[in-house]
């Protein structure tokens, strides 16, 4: 190839005429006819019209049925009939242009999309319905700072509020977290890092407890703590009930997160000579930190929203009670339940207001959880990745610098006649080598001695070659048959 090229070039230089053969032959495109490029990604226009037409037809059919032909009524029925009409018309329209397979594919895809739309529509509808009906209560600032102790069922929304329930929720969930976070995460660590038959037993039992209905957890605390020990409902009893319910959730979620920590990280840590505790504290837990935080926050969101264990244990009150060990202490979900039992419209509005506060609280927790976590262990954000790669570049330079010193120190051949790379190393490598050299030169002598000193060479820093000879192992000379390498010379 090179010979041809050089011959050609000399020919070009000696006789620069236009008849010289071209090096690459590009076929002429004139005789080839290519079909127009098909659009494989977008939706064809007739498909769009099919969907629109079918939707219009479905709505028309159901409006006709509901308004004139049959005595049917109700919004939900109208939507259902519209949807069925849409599917039917869409299938017919598609079958005009496509075969049965394509029709089936389109119909199934439509069904999948509609399942998703129904589900998410229900979610958005439930949340926004609660918040919108809660707005009349929420626009009164007293709703957040007053309690219901002075407000009766007939009072307007401008008096009374749910401050006591908000405080109750915060106190109960904080105490529950104080119990469940250490216990839950330590148990999850036990399941993953210690193992053994007892750990399997613990895992089975905690899996079984995720099946415990929350009302039964409340009943347990009611019967075991309230009727036998304290004889009164209190925030602490509610805390215990929430903890019994949240503990298996947190254990399970943390267990899943810890199981995802790659094994080679643990093995690398053990290979460096750490003990088990340090591996857990410095490798396993930091790696899974975001996942653990997410697990805890999602468990908290579940715990805040649970009504049934609280219903049996915390008791209903209209007053602010900040002492969890004495007297009833209501929380937000229970307050909602209590408000809407009343037939008074203002009380129902207050119930929706409290529910809206609860929804906003859960949403906030959820968003925080997503911002912090949502990534598996080892998956980093861009900033974390940059920080990690910068740290590993620093480590690499440090290790390389100390290694070069050590290699030259107890390898006399290399120290006396350092192999010089034949070509110039690439620019960035050169830059890094000079930086390494500068760092090695500036480093205090005793530190170099401490880090670089191999046991067999006590006088390492003295024999270290001048910095210009530092050659990274990557820049060994390329194998060349014309010139024998230094090894061949030595033998």
């Amino acid at each position, binding site marked *: 190839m090179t010979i041809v090229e050089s011959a050609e070039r000399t020919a070009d230089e000696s006789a620069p005429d236009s008849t010289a053969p071209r090096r690459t032959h590009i076929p002429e495109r004139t005789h080839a006819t290519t079909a127009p490029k098909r659009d494989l990604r977008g939706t064809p226009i007739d498909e769009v019209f099919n969907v629109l037409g079918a939707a219009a037809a479905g709505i028309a059919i159901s409006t006709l049925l509901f308004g004139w032909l049959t005595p049917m009524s*109700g919004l939900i029925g109208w939507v259902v009939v519209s949807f069925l009409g849409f599917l039917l018309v869409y299938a017919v329209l598609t079958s005009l242009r496509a075969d049965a397979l394509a029709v089936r594919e389109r119909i199934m895809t439509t069904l999948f999309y509609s399942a*998703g739309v129904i589900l998410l529509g229900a979610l958005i509808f439930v949340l926004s319905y609660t918040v919108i009906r809660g707005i009349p209560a929420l626009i009164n600032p007293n709703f957040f700072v007053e309690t219901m102790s002075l407000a009766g069922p007939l009072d307007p929304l401008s008096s009374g509020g749910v401050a006591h329930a908000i405080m109750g929720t915060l106190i109960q969930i904080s105490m529950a977290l104080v119990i469940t976070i250490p216990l839950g995460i330590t148990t999850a660590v036990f399941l993953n890092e210690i193992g053994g038959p007892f750990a399997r037993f613990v895992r089975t039992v905690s899996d079984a407890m995720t099946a415990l209905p929350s*009302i*039964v957890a409340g009943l*347990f605390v009611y*019967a075991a703590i309230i009727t036998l020990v304290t004889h009164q409902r209190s925030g602490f009893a509610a805390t215990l009930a929430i903890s019994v319910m949240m503990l298996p959730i947190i254990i399970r979620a943390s267990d899943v997160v810890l199981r995802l920590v790659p094994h080679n990280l643990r093995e690398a840590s053990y290979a460096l000579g750490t003990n*088990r505790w340090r591996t*857990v504290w410095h490798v396993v837990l930091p790696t899974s930190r975001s996942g653990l935080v997410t697990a805890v926050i*999602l468990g908290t969101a579940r715990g805040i929203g649970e009504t049934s264990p609280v219903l049996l244990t915390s008791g209903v009150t209209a007053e602010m009670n900040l002492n969890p060990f004495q007297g009833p202490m209501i929380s937000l979900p229970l307050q909602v339940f209590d408000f809407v039992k009343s037939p008074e419209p203002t009380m129902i509005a207050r119930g929706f207001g409290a*529910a809206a506060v609860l929804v906003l609280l859960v949403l906030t927790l959820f968003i925080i959880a997503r911002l912090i976590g949502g990534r598996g262990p080892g998956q980093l954000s861009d900033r974390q990745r940059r920080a990690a790669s910068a740290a590993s570049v620093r480590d690499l330079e440090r290790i390389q610098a100390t290694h070069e010193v050590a290699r030259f120190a107890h390898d006399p051949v290399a120290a006396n006649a350092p192999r010089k790379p034949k070509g110039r190393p690439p620019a960035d490598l050169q830059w890094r080598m000079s930086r390494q050299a500068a760092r090695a030169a500036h480093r205090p002598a005793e530190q170099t001695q401490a880090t670089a000193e191999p046991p067999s060479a006590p006088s390492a820093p003295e024999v270290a070659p001048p910095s210009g000879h530092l050659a990274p192992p990557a820049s060994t000379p390329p194998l060349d048959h014309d010139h024998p390498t230094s090894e061949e010379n030595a033998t």
Partner: protein
Amino acid sequence: MSDAPTEVLPHAAGPRPRSLRAKPVRADRVFRSVSYAAGGTTVSIMLAVGVFLAFRASDALGVSGFSFLTTQEWSPETGTFGIVAVLFGTFTIATIAMCISIPLALGTALLISEIVPARVKRVLIMLVDLMAAVPSVVFGLWGLFFLQASIIPVSQWISTYFGWIPIFAVTDPSGAHITDAGAYTSSAFIAGIVVALMVVPTQTSVMRESFSQAPLGEREGALALGSTRWGMIRTVVLPFGRGGIIGGTMLGLGRALGETIAVVMIISPVFSLNWQVLKSGTNSVSALIALRYGEASQFGLSALMAAGLVLFIVTLIVNFSASIIVARSRSGADSN
């Protein structure tokens, strides 16, 4: 180079084998005992719940004996109480919830794992997770104040045109069809819809995970043989995800059986077997506990404990079979 003498280190000369037994340092011993203590505490809390339930329930079960499983009324004070009506109601609500939630969960899971692009996928997964965190009292509010009013015409329509199917009929004791809207409120049907919305997220996430584990090679093979996307889903994704479908369904069933507050808000409790799901009046074990615990005597509490224990055992069986099915379907796909 090759004839360089191998250096023999002086202390390696003796053939004395090194002891390979690891001796944990003190930090490790402390860590180990703390971990064991945490595991032991967890187990003891949970066993305490189970044992306490069983112990207290045994009072009531000893009095009622086997009739606990066959009696319909619930009046522990007079000694005639049984769980059959409430358990029947629980299963009715859960069955209706499953009928609605399975198609929804299946469709959404396939939509997320197979159809939408990656960016939308993340958003959808997040929204489904958010739905799992919405408090049940909020769903209850929605069901009570919105759904009930707008679903009654649908109930009436179903019972008018499909009343010849016994479960859809709504009749008074003499057997005549009722059209009055009041007979359709607070029914198992409405409670079932609300519970369905609450269990769909659980089912969706289990199903989605199992679908996403269907092997890429088989998917591409199906597509390369000319199958449509639905054909690929039907022949590759669904068979591989069967364990996830069953397991996810049963996990959702476990939640549906134990759901309390939304059901309490919607139903009007009756202690009889009501086969007509559209008709007002049903019951569930958790609603029974929530409504009766306050007025219960010590013996009444024991009877409620017995009901709770039965519910717990049912959900335990459902959950364990679900996790066994899910685990079996994941065999070989483990990350370790």
